[in-house]
């Protein structure tokens, strides 16, 4: 980044060196530790100067026009003061600026703004969810008069319970019209769904979308709301903020590794145990800044769902019956001993590094190395070589840089990356999006201008959206230099290049080929081994990267499928629920042991079903898609007899004579990092390191950044790639697989990912139930016509291993010859990889009431 010129500004008589052009509120806070009070200003958004709270006295040191010398007066530089108070948020630091924030005039100005705001603000603090962490409350205490001059009867009475959508409620009385929420949606997310309606004192927030507040980031508006006007349906009246204990944690849903803070409190309804009351963002500028997606915020109910598996189960005849650990562990040990090493593990991305390590050690002790990663993505091993360089931060990509997103619907898969990629484009980065169907990010990429972080200026945006033939992501990227040299060169010659690869429409061979093609492009342009360059993948769940680091691979998984072991352990994955064809090879497994949160399809067939604790109940670490090892802490009371996965295995290993069981996750991590060189010997305490981050949100001045939390739990440690460590990666051969063809008369079924679906983890969150799409299959107009299917008809999709009855969505955006079937929407398992399927009409569309 270019060096910024420093200028001298004087705040309350003291001179400070600050970067030229920095916002005065930010500069005063960061450099002078002077909290200028604000309501409408937010460090992540362009200033609008609406609330007038940040007024200061502003002047300029006068200079002689001819000589440019500072004019002195009584030994002091002469200052030309502006006659009126000025809003600090709309000022940028310039040389010679003089600011006074502590004069009577400023105090009177602030006091009057507070008084004006309170004239129509209700006296709701005792019942307001924001009460206790409310910027208006805090600033009233700091700058307010303390006595009201407004007659109580003159107060406005407005609606206090306006649903802006299913998730967010608006209290019109509390709103102070700062427009933070509107601007957040408009400038940061790009989903312009909120607006002001009417004018003057009648000005109100409304939602323009149908369904209301239709965005994946709505919850953030409640954090940045400087009053209690916006509240989440999840937390409304849940607890007073001062009663909450904040536990640092990591979002368990996707590869972004969003830093969160679990606000917990003891609860009668949860047997007096600590319970997650709400999920709040925790600042990590390199990962999620101060934002979280609605899935991260609202999907936490599964951790205490009664549907969870709560005691170890052992199969007795046809039925699984509950048992206790002291019986289950010895029985398991017997089974494993009897297997004579014919044991394998399939692990999902929900298992932590500690869990994976213990499993790996267990297998090693039993003489097996069959560690399979149960994931739709392959080629993750390349991320260890050419993954984004250490020190990368999507938040710093901008002009001259390029991002390619391929074979992924990023908004649905990793919404946080979607948000950050969109913002990188706002800052001037070139955004290319390639997929076989239109996605929201493709729409973003092809926009030529958007309202970005400036009130009027419309910055031209650079980007391109490409549609390739269904399932041919790897073919497209491999051939890019020939087929679209312009795009190829734009990407290759960019200052920095980040490629985000998904796996939509690809089988494991295709995924591997795509990753290799991406790696080749990166290597060709020298975009490896340095910050802000390299490869990322939308690995499902929170620890897809951890699987790779711990040696769990898709190759092994394929081998397990081909040669099923006598004893198979599934760790936080559900092969039978994910893959309709899994039954055929699973039947060859003699003993199935499953470690799971929920009694799922795999549990139905298991000989042992062992309840594991969710991320909220235990300590552990995840590695996010940018290879950042991040720690989560115990927040919630445990469910039933569930144990941390690592602990179950540790006890089992002790029984098998593999050494004393470790007593803490930290001890497991210690052993892990001592043995795996790629972990660089990191300890839990390294992961807990924090440093001051810009902007300085959280802390005592909630008004500045909203109630996003200061990071006290650790920023995590990013693991270096082999390229970072100096070994120059070489381009590899892309083994282009044959693209799957539909059988005669059938269509090519391509599974897609939806953010909100009906997986076991989602279902307990009733709040989002309305946002979950009804099960559907997307068809092309021409195909539908041929099959005699109309939009909205009930159809049956038949594929190898099963069928699903869904609603047909017919449009032109689906390519011909393809049927898109989102995963985890239908009642029955649908394919997890591309396959051939037939679509048959079942009944006509039912008229919707």
């Amino acid at each position: 980044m270019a060096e910024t010129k420093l200028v001298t500004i004087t705040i309350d008589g003291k001179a400070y060196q600050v970067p030229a052009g920095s916002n005065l509120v930010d500069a005063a806070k960061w450099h002078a530790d002077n909290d200028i009070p604000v309501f409408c200003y937010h460090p992540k958004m362009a200033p609008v100067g609406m609330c007038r709270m940040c007024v200061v006295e502003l002047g300029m040191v006068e200079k002689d026009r001819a000589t440019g010398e500072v004019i002195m007066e009584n030994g002091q530089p002469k200052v030309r003061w502006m006659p009126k108070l000025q809003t600090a948020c709309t000022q940028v630091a310039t040389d010679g600026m003089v600011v006074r924030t502590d004069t009577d005039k400023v105090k009177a100005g602030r006091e009057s703004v507070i008084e004006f705001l309170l004239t129509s603000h209700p006296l709701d603090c005792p019942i307001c969810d924001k009460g206790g962490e409310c910027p208006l409350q805090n600033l009233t205490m700091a700058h307010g008069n303390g006595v009201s001059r407004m007659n109580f009867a003159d107060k406005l009475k407005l609606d206090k319970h306006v649903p802006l959508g299913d998730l967010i409620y608006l209290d019109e009385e509390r709103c102070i019209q700062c427009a933070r929420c509107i601007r957040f949606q408009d400038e940061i997310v790009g989903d312009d769904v909120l607006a002001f309606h009417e004018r003057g004192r009648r000005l109100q927030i409304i939602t323009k979308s149908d369904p209301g507040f239709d965005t994946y980031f709505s919850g953030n508006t409640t954090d940045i709301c400087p009053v209690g006007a916006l509240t989440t349906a999840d937390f409304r009246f849940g607890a007073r903020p001062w009663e909450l204990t904040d536990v640092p944690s990591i979002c368990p849903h996707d590869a972004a590794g969003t830093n969160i803070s679990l606000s917990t409190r003891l609860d009668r309804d949860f047997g007096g145990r600590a319970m997650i009351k709400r999920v709040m963002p925790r600042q990590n500028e390199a990962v999620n800044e101060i934002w979280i997606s609605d899935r991260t915020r609202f999907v936490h109910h599964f951790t205490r769902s009664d549907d969870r598996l709560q005691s170890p189960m052992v199969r007795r005849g046809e039925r699984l019956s509950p048992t206790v650990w002291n019986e289950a562990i010895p029985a398991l040990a017997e089974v494993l001993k009897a297997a004579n090493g014919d044991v394998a593990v399939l692990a999902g991305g929900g298992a932590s590094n500690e869990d994976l390590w213990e499993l790996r050690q267990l297998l090693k002790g039993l003489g097996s190395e069959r560690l399979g990663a149960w994931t739709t993505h392959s080629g993750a091993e390349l991320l260890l070589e050419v993954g984004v360089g250490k020190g990368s931060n999507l938040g710093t990509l901008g002009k001259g840089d390029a991002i390619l997103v391929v074979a992924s619907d990023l908004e649905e898969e990793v919404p946080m990356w979607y948000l950050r990629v969109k913002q990188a484009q706002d800052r001037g980065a070139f955004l290319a999006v390639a997929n076989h169907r239109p996605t929201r990010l493709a729409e973003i990429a092809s926009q030529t201008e958007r309202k970005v972080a400036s009130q009027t200026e419309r910055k031209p945006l650079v980007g391109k959206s490409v549609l390739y033939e269904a399932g041919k992501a790897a073919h497209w990227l491999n051939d890019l230099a020939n087929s679209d040299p312009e795009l190829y060169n734009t990407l290759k010659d960019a200052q920095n290049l980040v490629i985000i690869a998904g796996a939509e429409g690809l089988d494991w061979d295709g995924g591997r080929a795509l990753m290799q093609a991406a790696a080749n492009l990166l290597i060709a342009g020298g975009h490896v081994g340095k910050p802000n360059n390299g490869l990322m993948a939308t690995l499902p769940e929170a620890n897809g990267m951890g699987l790779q680091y711990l040696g769990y691979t898709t190759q092994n998984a394929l081998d397990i499928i081909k040669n099923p072991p006598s004893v198979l352990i599934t760790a936080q994955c559900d092969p039978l629920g994910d893959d309709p064809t899994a039954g055929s090879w699973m039947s060859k497994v003699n003993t199935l042991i499953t470690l799971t949160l929920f009694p799922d399809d795999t549990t139905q067939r298991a000989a042992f079903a062992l309840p594991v604790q969710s991320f909220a109940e235990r300590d552990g670490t995840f590695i996010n898609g940018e290879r950042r090892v991040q720690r989560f802490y115990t927040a919630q009371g445990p469910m039933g007899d569930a144990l941390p996965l690592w602990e179950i295995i540790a006890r089992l290993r002790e029984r098998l004579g593999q050494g004393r069981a470790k007593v803490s996750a930290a001890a497991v991590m210690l052993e892990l990092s001592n043995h795996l060189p790629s972990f660089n010997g990191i300890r839990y305490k390294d992961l807990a390191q924090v440093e001051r981050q810009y902007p300085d949100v959280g802390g005592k001045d909630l008004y500045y950044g909203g109630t996003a939390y200061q990071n006290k739990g650790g920023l995590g440690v990013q693991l270096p790639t082999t390229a970072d460590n100096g070994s120059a990666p070489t381009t590899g051969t892309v083994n282009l697989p044959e693209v799957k063809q539909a059988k005669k008369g059938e269509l090519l079924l391509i599974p897609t990912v939806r953010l909100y679906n009906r997986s076991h983890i989602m279902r307990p969150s009733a709040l989002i139930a309305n946002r979950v799409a009804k099960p559907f299959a997307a068809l092309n107009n021409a195909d539908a016509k041929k099959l005699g299917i109309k939009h909205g008809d009930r159809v049956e999709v038949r594929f190898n291993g099963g069928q699903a009855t869904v609603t047909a969505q017919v449009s032109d955006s689906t390519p011909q010859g393809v049927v898109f079937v989102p995963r985890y929407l239908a009642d029955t398992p649908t394919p997890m990889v591309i396959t051939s399927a037939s679509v048959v009409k079942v009944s006509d569309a039912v008229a919707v009431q």
Partner: protein
Amino acid sequence: MSETKHILLRWKDVKADFRKLAEYRKHEGFEGLKKALAAKPEEVIDVVKNSGLRGRGGAGFPTGVKWSFIPKQEPIKYFVVNADESETGTFKDRLIMETNPYQLLEGLLIGAYAIGAHTAYIYLRGEFWDIAAQLDACIEEMRKEGLVGKNILGSGYDCEIYTHLGAGAYICGEETALLNSLEGKLGQPRVRPPFPANKGGGLYGEPTVVNNVETIANVPWIMTHGADAYKAIGTEQSAGTKLYCVSGHVKKPGVYELPFSATFRELLVDICGGPSVEGRSFKALLPSGGSGPIVPLNDKVLDTRMSYEDTAKIGTIIGSASLIVMDDSVDITWVASKVTKFFKHESCGKCTPCREGTYWLDKVIDRIMAGEGSERDITLIENVAKNMAGITLCALGEFAANPIIHTIKQFPDDFKQHVKKDGKAAKPVALPAAGD
């Protein structure tokens, strides 16, 4: 005043129908544009600068200076005419547009040429839909004669003119709110800097000049007759003539074009014929509609020239020259209430002091109006108004505070007679009878 030359209502002097392009061209029409196109843009700006022409929208900012702020190097610039005319008591711009549309359009082209803009907009308030249609027809007439569009008058200069109707909001007369509205956004003012003349501050973020209709309509005459001829009219610091809109308690209300050197007496007594009802005398004057400070209409005021500098001496402004005259039957408390209600209705709601302040003021004045107020309420509204005035985002907040601050200052007794005495409710404010 017999020798008064009309500049804006020139058709009065030559007795011609300027609504017809041919008639207008017969009487010096588009001569100014020809002259301007023959000169360099900077020369045009210099002529306007030297003429002493000041913005007629109210602020009185020198027009030539405003034009010279536009950065030359920027490729895209816009010229916008503010025809939102929504100040209380103002009806001058519509007269120009209705009777002399081509002079406005000619001035607009000269201005656009001077700043190097190739697109110009006329932003009209929503109620002016018929005028907009008329202007559109005029523009089409001009197109036929090569006066608009590509290669105007063979000079190689291109300029397209569009009319745009607002949705009826006072705030859209504020230039940045007008730009927002023109862009299709909510009509709320923007923060400055950047100013409209700067990159990032104008229409679609490009440098933009926003001028009032009356200002622009002066420009063709200045180009035709030269800066010195214009400067000779009016006073030292207020060159030219002004359209004065007179309403209220005078015999002959209406729009009158007079040089700035004319006094209030000449206008209100000599021309408008004094108080409308025999036996009553002048009490108060709002010289610039609801937004300017009220003054008692006494001999001192009557003998003041209606120029920018002279009105400042008596503690008010000439602003857009919408003179609202009140005789001694008017209770000033009612005036304060009426104007406050207007600003409460028109406040855009963007900034706190104006949104909350106008609402609060209205509530307290209502109380005083009903005879339920106390002495404390008078000091309260005065204090609230002063608090507003210092820190609002745009001028509307200042305007909204003015009626309170100045009515209390100039007519304290009118308020005091309505406040509660010894805990008993006082006489409510009598509303003026219809037709009065």
